[in-house]
């Protein structure tokens, strides 16, 4: 029942992909523009990448962004994993639906509202805004994404594996680190990467909760674009796109290889049993 692609399929595919990727392709092309004007092609050059390395402000912003993303992703992963464990494992308890609803609410809550409410909280508490407040804000909204990813991994988890460990003399906390965590690790890592990416490209919440000296890269880019786009910005964006692409390809290659290996093992096991 395999059919070749019809004209309709090919057209939809081309239109769909152009819609998604044409802007990014343009951005990459113009990052190699010789001309100072962003929209006029003046020949190939890599000079904007060189000048990027001289731009202290952009590099500082990038460094702040990476630190915020790393710290908030790590904390969000710990908290999100715990939340997922409670949601999947505790069965029924008083206020379970309220709890799960509250964990997932930030997924659908408008970022502006989230940012504003956090700002109000920090002001009310009299906290000096800066690196720490941005990081806390990112942790708050990334946590629910982690919880969703880890929860999906936990749903397919055979609880008797943990019971077996306890039955063999392993106390509950040790069982978590020796048995549960290694088994759900792919989900936890995926959750961390998602949280890292979300923090990396967040503009709205960061703008609300940051203070002097803690400007993130998206904020920096946004403010510079308002003064006029320079090819330097295009270069920064191209590097970001490149990093993300490499990450995605690497992840899919690893997954694919594991799957192939697994299938081969299972075939071998099936053949070995008479």
């Amino acid at each position: 029942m395999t059919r070749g692609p019809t004209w309709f399929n090919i057209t939809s595919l081309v239109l769909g992909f152009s819609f998604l990727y044409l802007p990014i392709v343009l951005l990459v092309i113009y990052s190699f523009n010789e001309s100072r004007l962003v929209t006029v092609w003046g020949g190939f050059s890599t000079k904007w990448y060189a000048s990027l390395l001289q731009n202290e402000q952009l590099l500082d912003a990038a460094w702040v962004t990476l630190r915020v993303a790393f710290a908030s992703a790590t904390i969000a992963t710990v908290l999100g994993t715990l939340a997922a464990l409670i949601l999947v494992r505790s069965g029924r308890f008083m206020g379970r639906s309220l709890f799960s609803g509250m964990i997932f609410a930030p997924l659908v809550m408008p970022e502006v509202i989230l940012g504003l409410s956090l700002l109000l909280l920090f002001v009310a508490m009299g906290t000096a805004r800066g690196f720490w407040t941005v990081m806390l804000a990112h942790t708050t909204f990334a946590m629910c994404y982690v919880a969703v990813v880890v929860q999906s991994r936990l749903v397919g988890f055979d609880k008797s594996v943990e019971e077996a460990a306890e039955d063999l003399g392993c106390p509950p906390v040790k069982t978590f680190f020796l048995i549960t965590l290694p088994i759900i690790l792919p989900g936890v890592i995926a959750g961390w990467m998602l949280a890292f990416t979300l923090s990396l490209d967040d503009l709205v919440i960061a703008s609300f909760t940051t203070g002097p000296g803690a400007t993130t890269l998206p904020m920096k880019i946004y403010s510079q674009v308002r003064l006029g786009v320079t090819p330097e910005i295009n270069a920064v964006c191209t590097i970001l796109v490149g990093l993300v692409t490499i990450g995605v390809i690497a992840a899919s290659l690893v997954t694919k290889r594991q799957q192939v290996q697994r299938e081969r093992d299972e075939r071998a096991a099936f053949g070995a049993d008479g």
Partner: protein
Amino acid sequence: MAKKSIGPVRREFVPWENSDHPPFIEFRNVTKKFGEFVAVRNLSLKIYEKEFFALLGGSGCGKTTLMRMLAGFETPTSGQIFLDGQDLAGIPPYRRPSNMMFQSYALFPHMNVEKNIAFGLKQDSMPAQDIEARVSEMLRLTKLEQFAQRKPHQLSGGQRQRVALARSLAKRPKVLLLDEPLGALDRKLREETQFELMNLQEELEMTFLIVTHDQEEAMTVADRIAVMDKGELVQVATPAEIYEAPNSKFVADFIGDVNLIEAKVTEKSDAGTRLVSVVDGFVIDSEQETEAGLGETVWYAIRPEKVRIAQGRREEGQVNQIDGLVWDIAYLGDVSCIHSKVGEDDHDTIRATFANISRMVENPITWDDEVVLSFDRDAGVILKG
């Protein structure tokens, strides 16, 4: 005349017949409720050291809950559980001297076979060379030597089952709990493994407690069987007693195949009891005495293989003979099962089975033959409703 006994005698191991013999595992008035649902109801049971004991029952009868309470994964709502004289109340699973083999095997997917087996020993901080020695012993015992470095997903179902067994035996627990251990295996492998389990149990001289819904499995492996229904023990006895002397209609019907005949008590004496079939009026003469009063309705349970079948009609005035008409025949190779109609209604049949000991038969029984069904005075059991 030599004294008759029930079924084959397995071995000289009958601690349950001696009321002074201390039990190894004891459930004392144990009740377990899940909300409103009563999973186990005021149950008391004694299991002895080195016994192979089976909990048998349909799904939802409470057998798995009973085992999980012994392992420590469930807490009794009331009552006590003792193991080797120690009250288990408040002792968490990881400090109990029992080990369990799970229905799903529950192998650790990220560890190889060797590490799976060594896991329990490491928790006891056993010296490394002792662990190594014990693991290789378990690998040899379960014939898994060449798979030591494999991960669980690289093994077949039968191999995984053996890893689970090796892992639960490695710590030499006081009692091994087996939760439907052979459910996932195909029939041939299951039968082989049943005998392997029995040999292991005798070799290691350990107490085994198995939970199963498969009566053949329970009868093959166990010294004694507890038949459970709705959270209560219906009968606790050897496989032969359970089969030949069921104590209730439920057990008679649950274990194996049986003809249940509704009958009225018409005569009681020292020599036994006379019954008359309620539906068809034939007379049953049994050597069994019954508590049921004259005129009371009881059930006469007789196994199909204890009913003889022959072509012809009954002799006038004889008891334990019934005229029938062959209605259905099931040829199963080793045995044949014949349903004979004994009344007006099409469903009013009695089953007789016999072994096909000859390949060739002269004048075999066929459909619509007139047959006579007969049985001995001690062939069946009288059961009260």
